[in-house]
C-alpha cells in the first residue's frame, strides 16, 4: 500500500523518464508495490534512454541508496526531496516510442 505522497513521487519519477502521460496519470490512484517494482526495472533498463535516469542513478549511487532489489520502495517517500525531481522541464526520452509504449503497458498492467 502506497501513501498519496509515494504515489505522487512515483508518477513524477515515471514522467521524468517517459515524459508526462495522461494515460499513466489516470491510473496513479492505483499505483502499488507491483508498480514500484516495474518502475525499478524500467530505471535499470532505461538508463541510457534518458539523462534523467542517468542523473538519478548517479545521485543514488553517491547517496549509497542503490544497493539491491527493492531500493526504490525504500526511498520512494523521500524521493522528491532527495533528488529534487521536478515535473516541469523534463528531459527528452531518447529511445523509441515503441520502448516507451512497452513500459507504459507494464506500468498500467501493474495497477489492474
Amino acid at each position: 500500500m502506497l501513501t498519496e505522497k509515494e504515489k505522487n513521487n512515483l508518477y513524477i519519477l515515471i514522467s521524468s523518464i517517459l515524459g508526462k502521460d495522461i494515460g499513466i496519470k489516470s491510473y496513479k490512484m492505483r499505483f502499488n508495490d507491483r508498480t514500484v517494482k516495474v518502475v525499478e526495472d524500467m530505471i535499470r533498463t532505461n538508463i541510457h534512454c534518458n539523462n534523467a535516469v542517468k542523473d538519478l542513478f548517479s545521485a543514488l549511487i553517491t547517496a549509497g541508496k542503490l544497493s539491491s532489489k527493492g531500493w526504490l520502495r525504500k526511498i520512494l517517500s523521500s524521493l522528491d526531496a532527495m533528488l529534487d525531481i521536478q515535473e516541469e522541464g523534463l528531459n527528452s526520452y531518447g529511445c523509441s516510442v515503441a520502448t516507451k509504449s512497452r513500459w507504459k503497458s507494464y506500468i498500467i498492467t501493474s495497477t489492474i
Partner: protein
Amino acid sequence: MKFLLLGFCLIIIGGCSVPQEIERPKKYTKIHYSGYFTLTIPTSMLANAKIFDSDGTVIVFDKNKQLSGFIITNEKDNLPEGFDLREYPKYFLELKETDSLSTDVKRMFDLSSKELKESLNGPAISVYEATNKIYYVACKKESCVTFITMKNQNEQIFMLTSEGFGWDFLKNFIEGV
C-alpha cells in the same frame, strides 16, 4: 467363430485408423489495431481477461500472460519523412548497421536496441517470412517482442509485446502467419 474373429480384427484396425481429432477453438475474437494489423484470439481465452488501452490494446489473460500491441509510424517516432519503416526492426534488433542513418535516428535505434537487450536479458532473434509479412521475433523464454512488417506498404508496422507466450503459440494469434 471366423466372423466373430474377423469383426474383432476390423474393430481394432478401424479404431487405430481413425485420425485423432485436434480440438480447435470454435469461436475467435478479432482485435483490429489498424486497417493492416489484426490479432485473432480464441474467444474462450478472453474469459476473465482484462483489456485496456495503453497506446494500443493490451490484453491481460492472467498475471503471467499478456499481449500488448502497438502501431509504429514515422510520425510517432519522429522519423524523417520517407524513412522505410520496413527497415525499422532490422535497426532495432541490430540486424542492420545504423551508421548510414542521421545522428538522431541512429542514436534512437542504438539506445532502443540496448534497452531491449537489457530488458529481455539477451533475447534470441528470429526472422520468419510469410507471403506478405515478415516477422522479427526477439524472445527470451516466454517474453517476446515481435515486429511485423508488410512487404507491400511502409506506412506502419506493428509491435507485439507478449509475456507468457512463446513464438510457437503467439503466431496463432497473428493473421497470415
